[in-house]
């Protein structure tokens, strides 16, 4: 199909689609007038029943915790997929190149900044079920701390910090732990992913029953997943640097 034909087809189709969407929008409750029962019940019930002040976290890790298990595995599967797609054919597996950093000051700055990021990430994970944040957001920040080491230092220490088997281990453990917590409930005769621990008092870090466990499991998984993801993409970059230095 020519470009013009494609855009004409799309123009007609998009007009139809837009008309459909606008038609359905007239049937929506007005913005701000939402009265669905599901969210209302949870907003009322979760802080009391689950002793969790962040109701979103209660939904994510408990009421709809099974969705989150799927979500963890989406990330897990995507990272495994990226690792497979970006693999290097054996014969041109080059030694990892040195990408020397320009100054020691920069390196020191980067490393200390990485430390601060690490603390921030841990804090956001830890308080995820009390205030906004949680395993996913904190996990990405933790992975960023590892990334900073690579940007400030060089690719090689990053690689040394994140040897693939260890990160794979963390990744598998994090994702597996989520399922294992679910199965533990099954073993003691409850439903899969049923709460295992005492609820505690809302607003405290010890509150929320199983939520902190699942939260930390997903933080581990997300951190490892993003570290692997960055690792795969950065080794693309390293190969490029290598190939520009030694023209074939």
């Amino acid at each position: 199909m020519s470009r013009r034909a494609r855009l004409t087809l799309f123009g007609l189709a998009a007009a139809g689609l837009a008309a459909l969407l606008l038609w359905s929008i007239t049937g929506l409750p007005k913005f701000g007038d939402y009265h669905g029962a599901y969210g209302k019940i949870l907003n009322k019930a979760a802080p009391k029943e689950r002793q969790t002040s962040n109701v979103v976290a209660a939904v994510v890790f408990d009421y709809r915790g099974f969705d989150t298990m799927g979500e963890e595995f989406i990330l897990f599967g995507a990272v495994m997929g990226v690792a497979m797609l970006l693999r290097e054919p054996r014969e041109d597996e080059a030694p990892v190149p040195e990408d020397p950093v320009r100054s020691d000051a920069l390196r020191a700055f980067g490393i200390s900044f990485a430390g601060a990021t690490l603390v921030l990430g841990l804090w956001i994970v830890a308080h995820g079920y009390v205030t906004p944040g949680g395993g996913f957001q904190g996990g990405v920040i933790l992975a960023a701390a590892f990334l900073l080491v690579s940007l400030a230092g060089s690719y090689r220490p990053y690689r040394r910090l994140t040897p693939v088997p260890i990160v794979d281990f963390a990744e598998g453990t994090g994702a597996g732990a989520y399922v294992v917590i679910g199965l533990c409930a099954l073993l003691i005769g409850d439903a899969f992913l049923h709460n295992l621990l005492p609820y505690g008092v809302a607003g405290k870090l010890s509150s929320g029953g199983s939520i902190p466990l699942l939260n930390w499991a997903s933080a581990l998984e997300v951190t490892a997943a993003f570290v692997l993801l960055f690792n795969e993409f950065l080794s693309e970059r390293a190969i490029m640097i290598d190939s520009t230095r030694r023209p074939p």
Partner: protein
Amino acid sequence: MAPLQATIMTLVALGAVAVALTTDLVRLVIVSSAYTLLLVVLFVVLQAPDVALSMLVVGTIGYPLVLFVAIRRDRADE
């Protein structure tokens, strides 16, 4: 609806067009990061701090890195 909400939504609408129409890749990364930040503000306005934080970490850490590596790979031969 509050004027603040209407303003930020209009900006998001314009930002979407800007992203779709930008073809220069480096500029695209910048425009799309700006669009992500607009979304973060919109989510805060819509009382969704968890989502805003998620969008923020993804938009400032995840996307730019993979995009830049892909762009460098694209330009490696030129």
